[in-house]
């Protein structure tokens, strides 16, 4: 009994509310569509650039698991938590955050395992992507999700000034409650990115690739008894070490992201050659981060 995965998933869909915005549940059943603007298959690069208004941009990618195992959690995160993320980051002292939102699914079972927004500098603009994301509510009974598609996209399909101009790494957060697939098969890379030729890549390799220009983290949400079990945490610890973070209260996701960014950003800012007194090396030692979020 390997276990009737599609039957599990179908039952989960019938019995949990995944509808978001104006999509009714029946629409989710009949039209499993990704918004064209979020389709990664013809995106060469998402760019995070400095501008007059934002002279020292800091690129932050947030990839959220939007599959069925997460129950109603993605909806709450997308509706209530992430919209305040940019505000939280700015309050914490990151003056020019640019946030790219990704919706992550299961590339074995879902029709839209990767959905990509654009790097945005304001809460209003970010919200556009948060409301567009298609909450597939899918995933399979395979106890794994395609978080590595976020690493892939970050590594190969983003161009970020903070790294290219200032050697300041961006931040990549994946958020979910399952282990990650051990690899990304070549045909999945070809199907869901703009790459025409591809080789299968292991998760370890693609994380290393992403780490060339991003600090890579995974937030594991302990939103249910099952999600607290070791089998649901898989080998994240092995892959990311201290950057694997268990989060008991998923409502604190934005706060946690801001906290992590400010801690690591300050560190690397201080060690960089950039000493012209902007946000990157402002002394925040004495500020209680909790109070600012």
């Amino acid at each position, binding site marked *: *009994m390997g*276990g*009737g995965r*599609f*039957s599990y998933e179908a039952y989960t869909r019938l*019995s949990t509310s995944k509808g978001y915005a104006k999509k009714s*549940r*029946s629409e989710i059943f009949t039209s499993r569509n990704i918004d064209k603007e979020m389709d990664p298959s013809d995106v060469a690069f998402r760019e995070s650039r400095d501008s007059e208004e934002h002279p020292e941009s800091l690129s932050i990618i947030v990839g959220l698991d939007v599959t069925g195992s997460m129950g109603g959690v993605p909806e709450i995160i997308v509706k209530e938590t992430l919209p305040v993320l940019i505000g939280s980051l700015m309050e914490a002292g990151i003056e020019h955050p640019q946030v790219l939102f990704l919706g992550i699914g299961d590339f074995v079972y879902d029709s839209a395992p990767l959905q990509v927004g654009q790097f945005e500098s304001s809460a209003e603009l970010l919200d556009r992507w948060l409301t567009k994301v298609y909450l597939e509510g899918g995933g399979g009974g395979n106890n794994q999700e395609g978080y590595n598609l976020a690493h892939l996209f970050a590594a190969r399909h983003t161009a970020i000034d903070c790294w290219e101009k200032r050697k300041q790494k961006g931040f990549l957060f994946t958020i979910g409650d399952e282990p990650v697939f051990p690899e990304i098969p070549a045909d999945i890379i070809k199907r869901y990115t703009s790459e025409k030729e591809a080789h299968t890549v292991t998760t370890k390799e693609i994380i290393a690739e992403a780490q060339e220009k991003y600090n890579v983290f995974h937030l594991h949400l302990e939103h249910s008894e099952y999600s607290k079990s070791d089998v649901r945490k898989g080998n994240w610890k092995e892959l990311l070490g201290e950057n694997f973070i268990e989060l008991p209260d998923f409502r604190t996701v934005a706060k946690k992201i801001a906290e992590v960014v400010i801690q690591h950003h300050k560190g690397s800012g201080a060690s960089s050659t950039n000493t012209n007194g902007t946000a990157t090396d402002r002394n925040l030692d004495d500020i209680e981060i909790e109070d600012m979020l």
Partner: protein
Amino acid sequence: MPQCSIVIDLGFGDCGKGLTTDYLASQNPSSSLVIRFSGGHQVGHTVTTDDISHTFSNFGSGTFRGVPTFYTEHTTIFPPAILLEGKYLEKYQPRLFFHPHAMVTTAYDIAYNRAIEKQNQHGSCGLGFGATIERNREEVYFFAQDLAFEWVVKERLTSIKNYYQKLVDALGDQVQKLYKNELETYHEDDYVQCCQVIEEFYTVKSFEELQNSFDHFIFEGSQGIMLDTRHGFHPHTTWSNTTSKNAIEFINHYFGNTHKLDLYYVTRCYQTRHGNGPMSNTQEVQLQNHEQEANVTNEFQGEFRTTTLDPQLLNYALTCDKHYHGHLSVSKHLMITCLDQLPDFSINAFLPTINESFQSVLGSYGPGAKTIQVIQNDKS
């Protein structure tokens, strides 16, 4: 003369019925029909090709070869899952034929199954298969032929809902609460809609209408003989005949004596058990190349365990099955799977411990049908 091949798992399931069915379907796909004659939408049969690895639940394991699947009246179907899996497999143009009396599973069957299973832990998949069979025995029916009639579907759902409400009411607070929780946010409209939308994937047909269009009938078994409703070990059994019983009856009924019959018994080269319940006391095994295991520990079935094969248990399974076809002329074959995972396994040492002579012994050395090799072939 039509050829009938029956694929039977000798163990507790998970042995490689998907692989074996795909292999048989590959031999002459255009004239083959896969027949599901036991189990239902709860199965998980994994087939791996160069393009894709997929665990089938609602479509037969010949689907990647373009082979359609017939579901007999002994099986269950779950419309929302057909829609999901069918859409996922769309580019392979999956096709289903339903016996008019194939049994339809509802969310109420699943909710009841889960409420009970959460109390008992019998190793059920939590997908309402047993509940559906039990309900049909109580003569509360919902058949494949009803699906196309929306009003009928709604009435069936009302009857089934009332049927379970009575059962649950008699079982005390705990079950009542669990059952209610399962259905708290269930939307019946979605279910009804699914019953209509899946029309693109299935046709209701009697077997007589189909049998002359095909030459090779591949009977894809479910679970394993050690989980059989009669020969498994209560209470860790499934609600269906997982031996060749249903298939043999079917063949006798539709083909009489004019057919060629082959039986493919499938076992991994080690013993597996997914879910609770006994397995014989042999040593644990160390496996290699095992990363693609389709079975994972889950909330309902529990742990996936592996130990060395127990010849005594295999002989027992073969004996159980023999009684259903002993009177017929049958060619028997043995398929030993996952040989790449256990290099210590010796086929030559193993075969003499089995009290059965096989016309051929086959082995698989990887996930796909391509890796299947003929190990022994006795033409006499």
